[in-house]
């Protein structure tokens, strides 16, 4: 346990070296917010509210949604797929298997350190910017608790999904393809840009069965109070279910990967 804490700390410190990249990402985030808020303001054009599958959504709701979405993205974004891909390509992964350390937990701690750095130096400034310029809707107390839980689950889910995609490099070498495909799917179905409540009814129902919206749409809709207590509990339950499922899937793929490595030499 102590070891992982050390890795976490070290990752936090070394993140400071990537100053320029960090600033670039923050700027990118701000541009994203600019575009999204401009679009929503134009779409709403004078109307205070609009109908959706989750009830009436106000423009203030949408502005908050956009800002929170950018913040969540900053929080979860990782180089996992790329990093794993590189390790597998270069064969470094074999060394990782020899070390007396659990790779998944190691990478998680590493991502954690980076995430914390991001929260302090990217997320908070972006959040502050958004709040000042566009205003955020404050959450109701019980909603916020659920929100925190959902967010945490969402982070774990995203991590698991990234890891699984990263392992695909054992079979399919070009990891920017895997990365791109994953981001494509996330953009479409996670609700990061367009909340699921605006999707046409049938589509919305289908997509909500997938794990992707549980990272963005799920937590943010809870924050905005668009769900009843029962719905929130169902949501959290779904998250746990998917986490379990993905963890099993990860185990299975990992087993296959190690077998491949050991037999074929990677």
């Amino acid at each position, binding site marked *: 346990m102590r070891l992982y804490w050390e890795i976490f700390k070290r990752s936090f410190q070394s993140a400071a070296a990537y100053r*320029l990249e960090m600033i670039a990402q923050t700027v990118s985030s701000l541009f994203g917010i*600019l575009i999204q808020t401009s*679009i929503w303001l134009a779409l709403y054009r004078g109307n205070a509210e609009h*109908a959706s599958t989750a009830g009436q959504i106000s423009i203030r709701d949408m502005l908050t949604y956009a800002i929170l979405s950018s913040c969540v993205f900053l929080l979860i974004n990782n180089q996992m797929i790329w990093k794993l891909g590189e390790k597998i390509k270069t064969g470094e992964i074999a060394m990782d298997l020899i070390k007396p350390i659990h790779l998944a937990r190691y990478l998680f701690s590493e991502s954690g350190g980076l995430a914390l750095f991001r929260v302090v130096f990217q997320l908070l400034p972006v959040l502050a910017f958004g709040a000042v310029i566009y205003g955020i809707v404050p959450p109701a107390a019980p909603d916020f608790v659920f929100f925190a839980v959902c967010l945490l689950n969402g982070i774990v889910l995203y991590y698991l999904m990234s890891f699984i995609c990263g392992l695909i490099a054992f079979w399919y070498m070009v990891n920017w393809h895997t990365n791109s495909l994953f981001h*494509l799917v996330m953009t479409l179905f996670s609700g990061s840009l367009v909340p699921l409540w605006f*999707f046409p009814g049938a589509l919305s129902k289908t997509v909500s069965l997938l794990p992707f919206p549980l990272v963005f749409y799920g937590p943010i809709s809870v924050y905005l109070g668009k769900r009843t207590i029962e719905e929130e509990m169902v949501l959290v339950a779904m998250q746990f279910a998917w986490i379990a499922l993905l963890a099993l899937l990860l185990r299975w793929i990992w087993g296959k990967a190690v077998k491949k490595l050991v037999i074929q030499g990677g």
Partner: protein
Amino acid sequence: MQGIRLYMRFIGVYLKSKIEYDHIFVFMDLVLNSVWPVVNMVLLWIMLQRFGNLAGWDFDHLLFLYNLGYLPFLISGMIIWNPTKDLQELVRTGHFDSYLTRPLNPLAHLIMRQFSHGHLFGLVLSIGMLVYSVNRLDLPVNAGSAVVFLSIVAGGALIYGAFMLFCGSLSFWFIKSESVYELVVYEIRSLIEFPLPIYNKVVQAVLLFFVPYAFINFIPAQGILFPDRSAWPPALQLTATPILGAVLFALAFAFFRIGIDRYQSTGN
């Protein structure tokens, strides 16, 4: 011109070689590079199902606008993106030297070394989407409009190319010019995928006067679809783009030349 024939020949050989040795990867390259606009359009379509239109532009208008901005980007991307993006690395490592030992204009040489094949499929897709929206919008299709259209696309490609070249050339002075490149070529560019009026006045001013990407798609699109919304005469709305493109590219090229002079006197 002979250089163009040479480049055409290179592209042919390059593609043949890629397909021979890398077919599956080339295929995935093509597909994944081109799918993004489709994703964006799907999301846009979903939103417009509920909201009807965006600042008075409905889905077909927006499709037209988006692709009028995307097609020139692909064209200049295939030709000049890689070399300008990599210029920083070339200057830093000193590899740029080899571009000065040949009897060829260094920019031409840079371009001729590569071809970003990944955007080919996107090109086809983008043209397809444009054709579809032109159809839906019942826009006049004749020799005259074709010429106007081609000149707008060419002008747009020149404007993008100018900024790619300009930002790439910054590496002759500054070591870490990457972030400026990314800011101008990707971030600011993403703003013009949507109609200009949705943004606040400051952003609009930037896109019109500072990094005039608005001239690539918005000004001409508005000129074609809603010519009465602008104070300018329609003729100007449609011809501003190619003129601006030529001027900006000439300026960027001059800047590139100055950069080379500097490289030659200070080493790297």
